[in-house]
């Protein structure tokens, strides 16, 4: 109920502001945006682009998790490796999206590879650091307990080590699925050939602000839907790990 109220308040404020500014180039009204949004839903080209963006997002997310989790585990297991890799990760984390652009364009030109590569590079450090800190935070008392009882190494790794990093992996997954869309859209805008980001670039060149707003709505829905999806996947697991 409160959420709906908040949403209505937001739309009212937007409508008021649009009326005051009175220029659909700067700020279109909610009604304009809504109309264009509905028109867009009838257009097959929109769906082609939407699918392109979604598949890039999933490709990047998969790459990030498949690379980031094992890398984080390796780094987390050894303090020496951690301190060697730390500056590298810090640098990687602070490289702006734009800086990857030149590299990606020279490498692959315009297309899907650039956006997937750049999104992977910009979110990978978060997953690596998250996983590594999960390993570093393993309860040494549990490991000691396992040693006293002569529990097999395999069981210690599965139940204590992997078990300890699950919450960190779930948190990484949520962050990645919620944020990958932003970088995908920006990079599509800059070096993509299909996708919602490319549609925004077109709309911009026609100074079609209502279209940009409608596409932004799509991006917001996408992020919310994916976050919901990741929660759906993890809800069962989270019951077990709710102690965190």
């Amino acid at each position, binding site marked *: 109920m409160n959420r709906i109220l908040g949403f209505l308040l937001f739309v009212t404020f937007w409508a008021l502001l649009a009326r005051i500014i009175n220029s659909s180039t700067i700020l279109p009204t909610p009604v304009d945006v809504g109309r264009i949004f509905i028109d867009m839903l009838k257009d097959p080209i929109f769906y082609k682009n939407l699918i392109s963006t979604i598949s890039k997002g999933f490709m990047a997310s998969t790459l990030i998790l498949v690379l980031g989790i094992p890398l984080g585990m390796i780094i987390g297991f050894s303090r020496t490796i951690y301190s060697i890799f730390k500056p590298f990760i810090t640098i990687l984390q602070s490289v702006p999206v734009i800086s990857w652009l030149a590299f990606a364009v020279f490498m692959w030109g315009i297309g899907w590879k650039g956006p997937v590569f750049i999104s992977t590079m910009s979110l990978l450090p978060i997953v690596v650091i998250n996983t590594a800190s999960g390993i570093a935070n393993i309860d040494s*008392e*549990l490991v*000691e*307990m*396992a*040693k*006293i*009882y002569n*529990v097999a190494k395999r*069981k210690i790794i599965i*139940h*204590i080590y992997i*078990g300890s990093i*699950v919450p960190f992996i779930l948190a990484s997954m949520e962050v990645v699925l919620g944020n990958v869309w932003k970088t995908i859209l920006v990079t599509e805008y800059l070096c993509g050939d299909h996708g919602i980001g490319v549609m925004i670039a077109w709309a911009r060149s026609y100074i079609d602000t209502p279209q940009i707003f409608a596409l932004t709505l799509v991006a917001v829905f996408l992020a919310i839907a994916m976050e919901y999806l990741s929660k759906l996947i993890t809800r069962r697991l989270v019951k*077990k*790990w*709710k*102690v965190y």
Partner: protein
Amino acid sequence: MESILKAQKVAKKFGKLYVIDDISLEIKRGESVVLFGPSGCGKTTFLKIISGIIKPTSGEIFKNYGKLGFVFQEDRLIPWLTVEENLLFVNDDRTLSDKVLFMVGLEKFKKYYPSELSGGMKKRVNIARALMVNPDFLILDEPFSSLDYHIKIKLIKDFLELKKKFEMSVLAVTHDPKEASLLGNRILFLTSRPSKIFYEITVDTPESAEKRILGILEKFLSICY
């Protein structure tokens, strides 16, 4: 009676500091020995030496037991495993885990997670896990210290039943006179930093032992601190 464990002149130094100084101790089969002393007097370190997690700086340990069970002060249950899974972690025998859970009165809680249990129930799981290895020697590190009085007394009584059933020898540490006198056949007073045996009581009845502990407690604590 043959001895199940013998520690001879065990000492442990961390850096330059002696935490344990020259402890000798013998436990006979079926006997319960309690180490009584204030927190931080090196009792836990001594237990770690006995269980082989850390090596003493000097001295020797002779082991003559089959399987060792350990009841931890902080329970050390794996939070994301159920009660049953926690038991199976140390031994895959499902028949035994059912039997042991029944013995500690938790058969209805085997699918629960540790966070869903009370302090006393967690302690029971901690004890049940120790029983999963069919131990003939059991070490207890301040096992009942964090529990409410009446839960503690009930749990100790239940534990003594289990001790009989499993024919275990026991080495326990505690700073609680009541716990010490209920659990032990012999009570050894340990001073702190470095840990040394200061006094020994042989228990006739728990009531008289508790009185004797309380009788020398003040003098003992004045040496400890």
